[in-house]
Structure formats: structure tokens, C-alpha cells
């Protein structure tokens, strides 16, 4: 299977003879940055760059991608130190006058090899924050009626588009400082579910969220909000969780 993009890169006559120097992390937890020269094109994404290196220069480079159109979140990596979707990051956007790039695996996650990280802890925390919908209705019950303009639904909608790419998790200082911290994605999902009026697991979920490694460890650095490619603000969701849990604890409802 070949992509038209890389086919064109090697056979097309470059109007520019510009080359960029791309430093790519090679190794696992320990390793080094290796430099690769890559032809520069006008419309070029970081994913194009990585694919070029793996297909034309060094086939031993390990990296991950799938949809390459900004839907799946698989291609997230550190580009010049910032977590991004590489398929939706144009080289022109991050070069900033220089001609070098640095590409590394997502932070806060164990490195499997080169640019691929082990996302297990990310999804484990999602699960332990009870990030799954639990309903009481069966197919025999009438459809639930949820008003789209209700405050709960608006709150849920603000965070519902998360695709679990790990960019926010990778950007969070608190995740770095407290390895057990649930993280922005898991907490954001917990918030959207808490605001789903059909969900029945609210109390169980909030008990976990209120715990040591939960929402109270967020110090509103906003890194997650700044980096989220979907424009979600986990900081806002976590603030909502803090208020809700605070109210419930004060009223003795958080048993």
C-alpha cells in the first residue's frame, strides 16, 4: 500500500531545493535524536515528513498513524516539544524561520519504540475514572428525552468530542508530577458523563474523581486546553467537577 503523497515526493521535480533537518527520537526510554534531511514542500505536514523518513530513508523508524485526516488521534507526537496531531500540523506552521524540526514521542507515556508510546495507562485511567456510560433503560423503554439546550447537555456537549488522542495528557504538568493523576482526558469524560441525565453511575464515578489522584490535583495550568486539537477545555470540565463534588461533600451527599 503506498500513499500518493510519498510517491509524489520522490518522483516530483522540486520547485524548491530546500531541505529541512529533522531530528527524530530513536530508541526507547533511553536513546538519542537522529538527524535526517527531508525535502521541503509547500504543502507538507509533519506526518508527511515522518512517513518520508520511514519509507525513503530509514525503514526501521517506528511510528503510528491511521486516518491521516484528523479524526482518529493516532498520530499524536511532540513536535518541537509540543504535543500535536502530526497529520494536521503543517511544517510551515512550526518551522518559524528555522530549517530544523524536532520530533519526539508523546511525553508522560512509556516509549515502546521511537515515536510510538504505550497508551495503556491513559486508557486504564479512563476506565478507573469510570469513563463509561451506564444506563438503566432497555430497548423496551421509550427513548430518553434530553433537551439539547439544557445546562447539563450544553456542559456535556462542550467536552463530548474527545477522541482520546492523548495530547492533553501528554501536556499536563500534574501528570508528570503525580503519575497516578487521572489526567485531563479521563476527568473531562467523567464530567460529560456526569452531565448525561441518562447515566446512573454518577455517585460511583464522583467518589473516584474526588479521590487523591482526582480533580483536586488540577491547578489550572491550562496546558490541556491550549493544546487540545478539538478545542475542548478539560480545565473547564475539571472546574465543574470541583464545584459539583464540593457541593455534594458539603451537603453530605458524597458517601
Amino acid at each position, binding site marked *: 500500500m503506498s500513499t500518493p503523497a510519498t510517491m509524489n515526493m520522490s518522483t516530483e521535480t522540486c520547485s524548491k531545493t530546500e531541505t529541512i533537518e529533522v531530528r527524530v527520537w530513536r530508541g526507547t526510554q533511553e536513546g538519542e535524536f537522529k538527524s535526517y534531511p527531508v525535502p521541503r514542500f509547500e504543502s507538507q505536514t509533519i506526518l508527511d515528513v515522518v512517513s518520508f523518513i520511514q519509507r525513503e530513508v530509514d525503514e526501521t523508524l517506528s511510528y503510528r498513524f491511521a486516518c491521516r485526516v484528523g479524526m482518529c488521534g493516532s498520530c499524536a507526537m511532540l513536535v518541537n516539544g509540543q504535543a500535536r496531531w502530526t497529520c494536521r500540523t503543517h511544517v510551515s506552521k512550526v518551522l518559524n524561520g528555522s530549517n530544523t524540526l524536532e520530533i519526539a514521542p508523546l511525553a508522560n507515556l512509556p516509549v515502546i519504540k521511537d515515536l510510538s508510546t504505550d497508551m495503556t495507562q491513559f486508557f486504564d485511567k479512563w476506565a478507573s475514572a469510570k469513563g463509561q456510560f451506564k444506563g438503566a433503560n432497555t430497548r423496551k423503554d421509550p427513548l430518553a428525552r434530553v433537551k439539547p439546550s439544557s445546562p447539563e447537555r450544553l456542559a456535556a456537549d462542550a467536552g463530548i468530542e474527545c477522541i482520546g488522542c492523548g495530547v492533553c495528557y501528554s501536556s499536563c504538568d500534574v501528570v508528570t508530577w503525580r503519575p497516578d493523576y487521572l489526567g485531563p482526558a479521563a476527568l473531562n469524560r467523567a464530567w460529560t458523563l456526569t452531565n448525561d441525565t441518562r447515566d446512573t453511575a454518577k455517585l460511583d464515578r464522583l467518589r473516584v474523581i474526588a479521590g487523591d489522584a482526582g480533580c483536586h490535583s488540577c491547578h489550572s495550568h491550562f496546558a490541556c486546553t491550549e493544546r487540545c486539537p478539538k478545542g475542548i477545555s478539560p480545565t473547564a470540565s475539571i472546574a465543574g467537577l470541583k464545584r459539583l463534588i464540593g457541593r455534594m461533600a*458539603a451537603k453530605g451527599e458524597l458517601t
Partner: protein
Amino acid sequence: MSSQGIAQAKAWYWQRISAMVLALFVIVHLVIMIIAIRDGLTAAEIFSRTKGNLAFGIFYALFVLACAVHVPIGIAKISEEWLGLSAAASSLLAKALALIIVVLGLTAVWGVI
């Protein structure tokens, strides 16, 4: 498990409540300090304001108590995140600090009133 959650939630809202109280106290204190420093810092200068002044006494006593709530909670979080203390150790540190603030603070208030 949930007792931990309740403790965390309470620490969170007590710190915010004490913060809101302290905001008012601190503004007043800053004004007093800026005025007071004009005449230099001497015992006489301080006593001229504080001696026998019950309002002052109550104000600063409450200020000390609010600090005793607010400061330890913050220090506990810092010690957990940056010093790697366990939840139990940071909680102990917080309680010790609260005691120190109350004792030293109220002694200071008593001294100047």
C-alpha cells in the same frame, strides 16, 4: 476510598472559603502596612494603633485563624507534588503547621493588643 474523596473535597472548599475571607483581610492589611511604614517601624508606632484596640485584636485574631486554615492546605499539596510526601505525611505536616500558626499568631496578636 470515598472517605479520602470527602477529605480532598473538604480541603478544596475550605481553602477556597478561607481564600475569600483572606482576600478582604489582606487588602485591609496591605493598606495598614503602606500607611504604617511611613512613620517607620517602632514599637511605639505599632502600639499607637493596636494597644487597647479591641477591633484590631478581633480583626487580626480572625486573620490568624484564616491563615491557619489556608496555609497548611497549600503547603500539603506542594509537599505531595514537589517533595513526594505521602498523603498521610502531608496531612501531618499540615496539622503541625496549623498549630504553629495559631499559637504563634495569636501570641503575636495578644502581644500587641
